[in-house]
């Protein structure tokens, strides 16, 4: 696989790790924004290759995880309605709402379908003119262009039976929220490479300047991550705070201009509630006035649903980087991938799921003999 296998070379990884050991003289806390990066770090054991003082703090970049519970409950209510075809990426199906999840709604007769692109949902709407097709459009800037394209096409084709249940969130306001939070310890960011492939990184220099933090645009393969971490450490040791691009094979400064143009046409910036974190001003997108007719919340007017978070779940603290998943008392006990209390235990990008699935819950004694390193 071109552009993948060459970034998974174990020998080069060891060499890069040794270099980081040589550069680092002090402890540093570096946050990787994206849940995909978190999983790659844990799966490949990148954190175990770093000097003891370099701590990777896991960020909020898991779209499934930060989608507000109230919206998931709304999705469940819409999906349960007769005449609705409810389409979603596979990730969302097991995310627990207050009382249920999409799998259970499907089991009770709801027409819930996994699609691989929102454009497939538009095709479903064309093929099923007597049904209402709803796509659950969540995510960061990465998934936004395809979601925007789906409503753009639906409008152009005059579809009256397609709508988007939308909860888009944005990375730069999240960085501001984390840096502005009392007790913040994050000293550098690895920006999410996929997000920047769409948006570029022209939004980041003012943030690096304002908070005096290095921001490194970073990819997802082991060598990408090690390179991002190395560059962050070099800047931190030198007292610099610049924006660097360590993912130049994908990301340009300007980003994808046609995508950005479509996004600004279809969406408008709005305040968004982040699950576990709270409302962050101007941190998300909603459909703009021209496209409001495709908003599933407007079309279905769901009200009177009861929404209640699990009192045990500390997903918010995990998403803010305040605790590591295994520090939550419910982790691996009340909360497992089989019985998740929060979305971070379900999503393929959730930090709790990464720690659970790659065995970071097993006690030191159990692993001592095996030489299995721990996070």
């Amino acid at each position, binding site marked *: *696989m071109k552009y*993948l296998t060459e970034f*998974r*070379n*174990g020998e080069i*990884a*060891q060499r890069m790790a040794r270099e980081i050991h040589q550069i680092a003289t002090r402890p540093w806390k570096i946050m990787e924004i994206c849940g*995909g990066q978190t999983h790659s770090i*844990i*799966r*490949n*054991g*990148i954190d*175990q*290759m770093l000097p003891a003082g370099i701590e990777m703090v896991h960020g909020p970049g898991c*779209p*499934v995880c930060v989608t507000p519970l109230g919206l998931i409950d709304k999705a469940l209510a819409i999906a349960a309605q007769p005449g609705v075809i409810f389409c979603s*990426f*596979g*990730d*969302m*199906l*097991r995310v627990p709402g207050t009382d249920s999840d999409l*799998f259970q709604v499907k089991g009770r007769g709801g027409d819930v379908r*996994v*699609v*691989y*692109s929102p454009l*497939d949902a538009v095709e479903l709407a064309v093929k099923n003119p007597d049904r209402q097709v709803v796509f659950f459009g*969540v*995510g*960061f800037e*990465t*998934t936004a262009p395809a979601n925007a394209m789906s409503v753009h096409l639906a409008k152009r084709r005059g579809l009256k039976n397609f709508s988007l249940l939308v909860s888009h969130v944005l990375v730069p306001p999240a960085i501001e929220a984390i840096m502005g939070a009392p007790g913040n310890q994050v000293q550098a960011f690895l920006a999410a490479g*996929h997000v920047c492939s769409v948006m570029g990184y022209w939004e980041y220099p003012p943030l690096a300047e304002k908070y005096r933090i290095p921001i490194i645009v970073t990819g997802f393969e*082991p060598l990408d991550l090690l390179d991002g971490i190395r560059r962050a450490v070099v800047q931190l040791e030198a007292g610099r705070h610049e924006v660097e691009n360590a993912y130049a094979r994908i990301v340009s400064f300007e980003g994808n201009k046609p995508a950005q143009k479509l996004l600004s046409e279809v969406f408008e910036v709005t305040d968004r509630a982040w699950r576990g974190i709270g409302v962050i001003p101007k941190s998300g997108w909603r459909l703009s006035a021209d496209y409001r007719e495709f908003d599933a919340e407007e079309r279905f007017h769901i009200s009177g649903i009861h929404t209640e978070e699990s009192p045990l779940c500390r997903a918010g603290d995990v998403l803010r980087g305040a605790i590591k998943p295994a520090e939550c008392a419910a982790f691996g006990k009340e909360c497992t*991938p*089989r019985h998740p209390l929060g979305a971070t235990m379900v*999503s*393929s*990008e959730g930090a709790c799921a990464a720690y*659970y*699935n*790659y*065995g*970071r819950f*097993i006690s030191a004694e*159990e*692993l001592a*003999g*095996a*030489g*299995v*390193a721990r996070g």
Partner: protein
Amino acid sequence: MAENVISGALDFSNWSCPLPLADYPTIVMGHGGGGKLGNELVEHLFLPAFRNPALENLGDAAVLDVAAGKLAMSTDSFVVQPLFFPGGSIGGLAVNGTVNDLAVSGAEPKFLSASFILEEGFPLAQLAAIVAAMAEAAAVAGVQIVTGDTKVVERGHGDGCYINTAGIGVLRPGITVGPHRAQPGDAILVSGTIGDHGMAIMSVREGLEFESQIRSDCAALNGLIADVLAAVGSGVHAMRDPTRGGLASTLNEIAQSSGVGVAIDEPSLPVRLEVQSACELLGLDPVYVANEGKAVFFVAPEAAERVLEVLRSHPLGRDAARIGQVTAEHPRMLVARTAMGANRVIATQIGEQLPRIC
């Protein structure tokens, strides 16, 4: 493809019934009613395809001649969608799945039953193609389909065609394999590339089109396994065919049954480039993706090289690889050494893998 298969299975020129099959191009409720329509299916579809002495008696039960000794029995139901996919069909799966379950138990598969649950309106031509695929798979595996049943459910109450097969095999004398017999020091081998079947199925489901076609590995493994057992006999301690849940589930099951640790070397896992690429795209891990024509062997260390040689000289084992070993450390856990040199635990999946958002 289907056309050719059908003309072989359905010979309308010999059709003797006053209501020819050609008049009923789709399954109707009467095909499962125990009357004439059902009999016609048997006489003109199932019997010609599966023909053997035990089946031809058409009794309520097949009477079988087996050598004295221990028998192995297994059953499995098949509900795959789509019914036809690159590299196979539900028919081939239904035969090979049960044959393989018997074979990895150390038995020589002999006889199968086949039960069909058909949905009203199911095209007879498709049923004929499925039956032809079963007949071909049975011939390749050297097993006989000796008894069967057909039921029809109303339209909307089934998914076209479900098949259940049960199988009987004769245990080879002196062979004692089992998931609880893996021992520290055992070498672990897999007979070929992993994840082919699961990704073949996923690639043809709605909305997924890959540039290069991924084919299911669906195959009967009894011949391959017979070669291995003939070569090293009791040197094989445990065998499994890693179907649903993939290699990860199989290795975890054996780790738990035997109370041992299983350590694998991730870069040594044989994965086709197109399967790996498709998995990357969807955010799936090939160790969790289903196989239908692969076996995993836990063998005594001194037998490992010989088993690898035997596997690689068989057409179904050309890509066989040694992937790890059994250890007394980390009992009941599967641990993989990654390309980075780190270790990670591979847990059993909760449900099916779900493609990620981005």
